[in-house]
């Protein structure tokens, strides 16, 4: 074998290498144009169209009982800048729309294709109903009843919804600027990084997030969880001496082997230190490369140093720490230095 030809194609061609090159040629990259940044999003100056004429009795009653406001006799017509448009409606749903600076709401039924919903409006979807709302040119969200969704903010730099209860399925373009689209719940905020995901908020505010495509940051009381395609987590509020905190399960892939999911769930819900230690050891025994991100979350969030130490060792085995990331800082350190090292490791693991 000619080392020179293998190294830089200098020297006489090596027949064996040439034969391999020829054979593999069909797989070579066929270059395309480089991706381009999305053009600045057009702020559609939404002319408020007349909302649907027919008012459905059931949603209005529901809204009346829920918000205690008087239904308007006729749909309101207004001109505002907003970008939430109802695209599909199945079953019975209605919106409570607040006039600017007023606590008085106008309640109206929805009509697909015609109803544009302003910032601050609240959507109520009855049992069995489904409403799909287009969010600017970012994508859409589908609300499945019984559900209650507030359209909190619609601006060029933030499109934010708040899901009080029910199920919302979000499908956001991968071209969307990261963090532009967010859905809050009583326990945290899902920050879109270009993806498709489902959130379900139960009556007590507990939230399940499942990512079907792309990536999501789920920000909970200042601390993010990082989920990518196929991963899920569950967040609930738990009582403490001083009030309550939001407690999250460790993100894990939904198609992970049963043993992985069961041992991780046992760790997440363990109460005593002994239980936590034994369940963590059990989980780490079964963790595969795919669980590296789960182990990273444990290393970041675990309050007990001996358990952080176990998590560090396993994570280092699954995916060695990048240069500049050391055991002492990750396990026993604190503050910005530790945060920076853990973030460096996460970026090395996840790439975003």
């Amino acid at each position: 074998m000619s080392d020179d030809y293998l190294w830089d194609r200098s020297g006489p061609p090596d027949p064996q290498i040439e034969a391999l090159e020829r054979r593999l040629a069909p797989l070579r990259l066929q270059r395309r144009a480089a991706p381009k940044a999305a053009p600045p999003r057009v702020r559609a100056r939404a002319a408020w169209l007349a909302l649907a004429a027919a008012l459905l009795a059931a949603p209005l009653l529901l809204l009346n009982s829920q918000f205690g406001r008087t239904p308007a006799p006729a749909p309101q017509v207004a001109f505002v800048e907003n970008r939430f448009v109802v695209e599909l409606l199945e079953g019975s749903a209605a919106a409570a729309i607040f006039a600017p600076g007023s606590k008085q709401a106008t309640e109206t039924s929805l009509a697909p294709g015609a109803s544009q919903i302003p910032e601050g409006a609240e959507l109520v979807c009855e049992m069995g109903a489904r409403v799909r709302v287009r969010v600017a040119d970012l994508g859409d969200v589908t609300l499945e009843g019984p559900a209650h969704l507030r359209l909190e903010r619609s601006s060029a730099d933030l499109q934010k919804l708040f899901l009080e209860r029910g199920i919302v399925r979000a499908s956001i373009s991968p071209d969307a600027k990261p963090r532009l689209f967010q859905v809050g719940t009583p326990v945290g905020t899902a920050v879109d990084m270009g993806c498709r995901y489902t959130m379900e908020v139960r009556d007590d505010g507990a939230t399940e997030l499942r990512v079907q495509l792309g990536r999501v940051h789920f920000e909970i009381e200042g601390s993010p969880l990082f989920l990518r395609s196929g991963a899920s987590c569950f967040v609930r509020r738990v009582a403490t001496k001083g009030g309550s905190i939001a407690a999250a399960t460790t993100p894990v892939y939904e198609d992970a082997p049963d043993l992985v999911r069961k041992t991780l769930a046992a760790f997440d819900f363990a109460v005593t230190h002994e239980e936590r230690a034994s369940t963590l050891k059990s989980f780490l025994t079964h963790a595969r490369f795919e669980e590296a991100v789960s182990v990273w979350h444990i290393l970041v969030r675990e309050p007990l140093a001996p358990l952080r130490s176990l998590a560090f060792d396993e994570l280092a085995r699954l995916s060695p720490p990048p240069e500049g990331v050391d055991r002492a800082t990750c396990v026993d350190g604190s503050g910005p230095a530790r945060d920076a090292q853990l973030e460096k490791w996460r970026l090395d693991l996840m790439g975003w």
Partner: protein
Amino acid sequence: MSAVPRPDAFEEPAAPESAADSSFVARARAGDSAAFEHLYERYASMVHAIVLSHAPPRDADDLTQEVFARALAGIATLREDGRVGAWLASIARNVSRESLRTRRRMSELGEIDPAARGSADAIHGAREVLEAIRALSEAYRETLVMRLVEGMTGPEIAERTGMTHGSVRVHLHRGMKLLHEELERRGLTP
């Protein structure tokens, strides 16, 4: 008496990525599409090789585009402009793994459009060799695909990936030896 140097002290220093990369990254971050196109031209083969080392071959071109789309969206988060190659490689590996997770199976290379890639026989032959390469460990796999599929030279591989010349030489030389053994084992010796 001087200390005995460690083996890696004999290696040539890490090949520095072009200093110009930093400038192109800064310009791309500021919205200069020509600068991003330059980075694409420079790194597309490396990214494609990494994707091809892990993901279904049929998807390799699309996933390469996905890597650069993510890079464009996230270029503001790149902390060391001079390490753009390593950063793109990391994105490429993650995109490939995500793709595998989604598909849960390797797609058949035969699904590639023969009109775009050559005859069905040629595609079949390429698949056989690629499968042998993919049977090797990751370190050899990526380097061999860069050299044998994408046609990059050793110095180019070192420059794009940030590996030392010595490491690339070892990966190529040792990787070729292992590949021959693997091809022989499969009855595919060229």
